[in-house]
């Protein structure tokens, strides 16, 4: 059942989204696409993946080298994130918040990740893990409209490379948590168990899980469960 108050709230939230998108279009340079698709290598794997169960579609590609990070919100509501240097997690989370995606971001030393679980999984069970291609340019991913639903949070944990803040990360975990997100408790990463994962490993061309995103490069996507 809905009434005037509910409908008005919905209309106003759409208005927020529209305004944010308009701001994003004028203020942020669109992410450069296509030109730098080759990923030089592969990162270490992330264990405990149950990609199919979570509500996110992620595009993982290489990037060209611009500072720290950039968050772009397109007119279609797709929020594109690129991280070049893993130095300012709070700034990135705030930037994502401004783009309408509530986010918690943690950068950890190589081999460390946040203890699971971080909270109740949004959109299904299991957790979403993405492998990030090793590349001099960092990582990028995209969040489509509605993939981090209201009341949910995008939780990103990056295990940095021992080679430095700007080196391709050791591993990256991306998940959607509904409601409260537990603070990151650093813990050693579990040993990857390939048979468990929803991701597969190629050799030289980065993660390639389900390229359903039309030429955007390797991608990993799943539908909300």
């Amino acid at each position, binding site marked *: 059942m809905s*009434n*005037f*108050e509910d409908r*008005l*709230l919905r*209309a*106003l939230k759409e208005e927020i989204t529209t305004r944010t998108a308009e701001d994003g279009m004028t203020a942020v340079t669109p992410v450069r696409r296509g030109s730098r698709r080759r990923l030089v290598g592969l990162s270490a794997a992330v264990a405990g993946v149950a990609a199919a169960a979570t509500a996110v579609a992620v595009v993982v590609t290489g990037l060209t080298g611009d500072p720290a990070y950039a968050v772009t919100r397109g007119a279609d509501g797709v929020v594109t994130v690129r991280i070049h240097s893993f130095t300012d997690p709070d700034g990135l989370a705030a930037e994502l*918040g401004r783009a309408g995606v509530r986010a918690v971001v943690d950068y950890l030393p190589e081999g460390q990740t946040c203890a699971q679980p971080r909270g109740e999984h949004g959109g299904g069970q299991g957790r979403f893990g993405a492998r990030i291609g090793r590349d001099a340019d960092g990582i990028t991913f995209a969040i489509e409209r509605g993939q981090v639903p*209201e009341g949910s949070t995008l939780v990103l944990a990056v295990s940095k490379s021992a080679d430095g803040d700007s080196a391709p990360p050791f591993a990256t975990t991306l998940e959607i948590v509904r409601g409260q997100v537990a603070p990151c408790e650093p813990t050693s990463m579990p040993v990857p168990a390939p048979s468990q994962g929803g991701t597969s490993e190629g050799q030289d061309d980065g993660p390639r899980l389900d390229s359903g995103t039309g030429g955007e490069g390797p991608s990993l996507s799943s539908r909300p469960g």
Partner: protein
Amino acid sequence: MRLNEDPVAFEAFYRRHVDAVMRFTVRRVSDPHLAADLTADVFLAVLDSADTYRPGRGSEVAWLYGIARNVVSAQHRRAAREARATGRVAGRRLMDDDDLARMEERIDAERQMRGALEAMEGLPEGERAVLELVAIDQLTVSEAAGALGIRQVTARVRLHRARRALENVASPSAVYLEGQA
């Protein structure tokens, strides 16, 4: 946290205040469609003014009522009517028959408040504004001062004058003019 950028924060804000905003409008207009438009307009103005919103600093209520007052003022209503022709969120279009009936009930329930507001019309604007917020909308004096952008002591003086002036008017609505200070 920005109200105009964070839908979650905005929703929390909206749910805290939507009832008060609807009450605010039906105390001032008796047309249910217009009341719906104004309710929407107040929250749109909240988005427009989100830059001045400081959670935890000063009173959220004062901030909101300051905005609501501007939106519901007759002058704004004229301008808004024109803007609405091209506007994106028109309150009245969001109402179904049930909502209309509920809005009419709200309007009925506030009839006496509208009467009291009419009784204040003869007061000087500054005094009336304070009395309105305190007696009709049940704000504290400090919230009313915040909403009007005046000092508390000024609000207090104006409130006192307004009440004294009204004592001389034997109005049946005077009983409603005893707000909380």
